[in-house]
């Protein structure tokens, strides 16, 4: 249990992010949860690269034990891709705010539902008047 403490703590952080993504309806809060999730995944990758008593993978004659550089490279790529997708997500939130006037998921769904029923009614009404017009 103590030996795996760091991994258990990482899993807790991961699941906290996942919970925020699912449970909260606010879109910005969802993205905050996604960032929390993502940052915890970085930790999950970096943890096994570490050797206790070692040093950073910059070669020097006075050191012999280094951390594994491969996870570091993968996570550097992931961080940069993560900020790109985050920026795109936030732009979509800004557009949603302008189109719907809200960034709460349930309010957007409610507005979409009412809009659909309104257009349906308009269509039905349009068909009726169309027929009426033909008849007259």
């Amino acid at each position: 249990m103590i030996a795996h403490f760091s991994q258990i703590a990482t899993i807790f952080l991961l699941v906290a992010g996942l919970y925020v993504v699912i449970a909260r309806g606010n879109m910005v809060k969802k993205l905050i949860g996604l960032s929390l999730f993502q940052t915890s995944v970085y930790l999950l990758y970096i943890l096994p690269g570490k050797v206790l008593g070692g040093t950073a993978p910059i070669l020097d004659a006075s050191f012999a034990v280094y951390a594994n550089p491969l996870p570091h490279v993968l996570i550097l790529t992931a961080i940069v891709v993560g900020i790109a997708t985050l920026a795109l997500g936030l732009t979509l939130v800004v557009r949603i705010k302008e189109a719907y006037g809200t960034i709460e998921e349930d309010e957007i769904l409610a507005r979409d539902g009412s809009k659909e029923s309104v257009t349906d009614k308009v269509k039905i009404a349009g068909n009726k008047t169309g027929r009426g017009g033909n008849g007259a």
Partner: protein
Amino acid sequence: MIDAAMIETAVTIILLLLLGAVAIGIVRVRGLFAAVVLLGVYSLLMATLFIVLDAVDVAMTEAAVGAGVSTVFFLGALWLTDTVEAPAKRRQLMPLIVALVTAGALLWGLSDLPQFGSPDQPIHRQGADYLASSLPDTGIPNVVTSVLASYRGFDTLGETTVVFTAGIGILALLRRRRGEGGN
């Protein structure tokens, strides 16, 4: 005499406990502004932890991008939208169940993982040995740089493609907005 490995383990555990506290704060807080600032704190703590875990390049990137740029992006988005989250309407059980099942599955898989920080882990014994081949092959003492730019240069090319695509997407979305505003 306390050895370096013990100090490293102790600092790692303390930083993980701090990260856990900040994560609980992010989950519980209702104001979006507070959540964004807490996320910046979380990223900075994570960068500190990366230094302890000998991932100095990742730590610098995380401090600059995670704590810096992404906080600025979030604040910009808050300025254009709302800073207050709507209060919860009812207590939902489903997200908690999904989170707990995921945690359970991950904890179950944990039992097979090697011990943290031991040099006998498969990751250190198998696969390409960049530490030994970096200097003769590329002449770069920083192995992360040589792997990123030389051995895995195509990965980095793909990464820049993703960033470019995201930039095009953002420009397209914002331009449409400006056009509608002009009309």
